[in-house]
């Protein structure tokens, strides 16, 4: 795993860059970048489970939807405030993670993957069927940006709101991975069978990883609800669960910021290219195939390889300058 302070530097640089976006005043860019940040968090949460712990899940949308719907319901029915709604949305993932995690994580990886699919679709079915509470296929609308605690109705305001959470969470998750908890997660992904013989219970590690991943995914879902103002059940459908997976693959699952890169590419493909290339999903499918067959490191991997190649072929000066950056 690539874990050096390069990542922290990159995160801060990214945050600084993102800070500049509202200055353009262009609503579209603000919109796109907000979506990018939300998807990045979703993908990062996914990669914690997939890239680091080695647990493939097809039901991750469940957390996104739980966060989104809880925030929506709370702000519409209990207290009209996005910030409080967000907190509640995030916390709502805890019982879900504990229950689902406890039931599914004791199985082998393949069965876990399929079980997450079943549970994810269970949540979807619930959202669709429970019209009185969730609005069924129409969903819920009118999620407020102006609340009693905080008012983020202007684009700049909600953009900064999202940016703040994005930066804090991205850094926080990184620190988690670098900590001793994170080391155990990486060990889990590296060789799960060895763990009991190094004195640790794999189930326990899986559980807390699932919890952290779920919390982050719900955060992204809650942000989405507030951002969009509307939630519909399709955010719980299994194909939505596949999106962070694809983003992670595109960017590279073994690099911390890989999912962020992947989210970026994904957004470009879906929004910008979609205008010109109607069949962007086709491109996506082809990209996934190409990556699995040839470039399992994703774009991140290709960038890092290119970096190495450039480094080797350059002169001593560059070698000296970059010798500090051990990627």
């Amino acid at each position, binding site marked *: 795993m690539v874990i050096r302070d390069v990542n922290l530097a990159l995160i801060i640089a990214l945050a600084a860059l993102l800070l500049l976006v509202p200055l353009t005043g262009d609503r579209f860019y603000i919109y796109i970048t907000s979506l990018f940040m939300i998807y990045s968090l979703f993908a990062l949460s996914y990669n914690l489970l997939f890239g680091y712990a080695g647990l*493939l899940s097809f039901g991750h949308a469940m957390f996104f939807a739980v966060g989104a719907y809880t925030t929506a319901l709370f702000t519409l029915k209990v207290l009209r405030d996005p910030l409080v709604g967000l907190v509640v949305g995030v916390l709502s993932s805890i019982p879900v993670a504990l229950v689902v995690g406890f039931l599914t994580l004791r*199985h082998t990886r393949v069965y876990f993957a399929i079980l997450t699919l079943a549970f994810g679709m269970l949540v979807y079915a619930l959202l669709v*069927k429970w019209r009185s509470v969730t609005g069924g296929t129409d969903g819920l609308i009118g999620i407020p940006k102006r609340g009693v605690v905080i008012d983020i109705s202007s684009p700049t305001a909600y953009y900064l709101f999202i940016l703040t959470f994005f930066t804090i969470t991205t850094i926080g998750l990184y620190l988690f991975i670098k900590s001793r908890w994170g080391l155990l997660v990486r060990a889990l992904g590296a060789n799960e069978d060895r763990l009991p013989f190094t004195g640790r219970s794999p189930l326990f590690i899986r559980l807390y990883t699932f919890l952290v991943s779920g919390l982050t995914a719900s955060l992204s879902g809650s942000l989405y609800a507030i951002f969009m103002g509307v939630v519909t059940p399709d955010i719980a459908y299994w194909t939505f669960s596949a999106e962070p997976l694809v983003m992670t693959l595109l960017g590279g699952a073994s690099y911390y910021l890989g999912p962020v890169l992947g989210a970026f590419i994904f957004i470009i493909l879906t929004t910008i290219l979609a205008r010109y290339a109607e069949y962007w999903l086709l491109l996506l499918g082809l990209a*996934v195939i190409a990556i699995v067959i040839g470039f399992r490191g994703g774009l991140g991997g290709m960038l890092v390889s290119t970096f190495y190649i450039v480094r080797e072929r350059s002169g001593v000066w560059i070698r000296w300058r970059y010798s500090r950056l051990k990627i």
Partner: protein
Amino acid sequence: MDLDAFLVQLIVGLYKGSFYWLLAVGLTLIFGVTRIINFAHAAFFVTGGYLMYTFYNYTGSFILSLVLSSITTGLLGVLSEVILIRRVYRLEPIYQLLLTFGIALVVNELQKILWGKFPKYLSIPDYLKGYISIGGVNISYYSLTIIILGFLVFLSVYAIINMSLWGLRVRAVWRDRTMAQILRINPRAVYTSTFFLGTALAGLGGSLMIALHPVGPGLGDHLIIYAFIVVVITGLGNIVGAYITSLLIGVVSSLATWLLPEVDVLIVYSIAALVLLVRPEGLFGER
């Protein structure tokens, strides 16, 4: 309880279950032999439907189109296996799943390009139209045809697997690939032919479905879940169990839709989740 209505729902459940079966049999065969869970399987089911549409409009013969579309779908499956899936046999299951997922995306999109975004529908050929009456209830010939065909497929597949030479090879590779190689069985040929059979059956399912229910983009996404649920509840790798479970799921979901429309889908997913939790190997599974 209204017995007539019950009978109707039962029949509906049986033919729905037969569709699930046609989808699940290929999935379970392919998994048993190659250990790959083919996400693209449902996409091929839909392909079968589209091909049926095209062939029927071209030839006007229902049976011929059925055969042609099934075989063509099977060949497409072989194509995907030879060109792409072969390369990932040695990779971790995660990457195999991802590859088949990518293939599913590509197939779905290609279908949209070739046949457009709107669903296609065929009408039932004249000689299959009509109903028979059982106790005040009308049951269409077509639904009976589907149920019977499903059963015939079950018998045939069972017979082929258990009684033919090819089936013997399949079972050998299923049990122990290395041992099979030692016995001079070429696993590659077995893999490819299994892909052909499995995918062709899925194609057959899609071809039959189009006369009953429009086939369009999104159908694959919806069906794959049911196929997975069947295969996983049964336990990957059991033909008899898969047939029984498919029919069961069909009937249960049909009855649920009739009796408890508020929670019909929930019931199926809940049952699936429950079974998996209690018996992770599935009801009839081996591992």
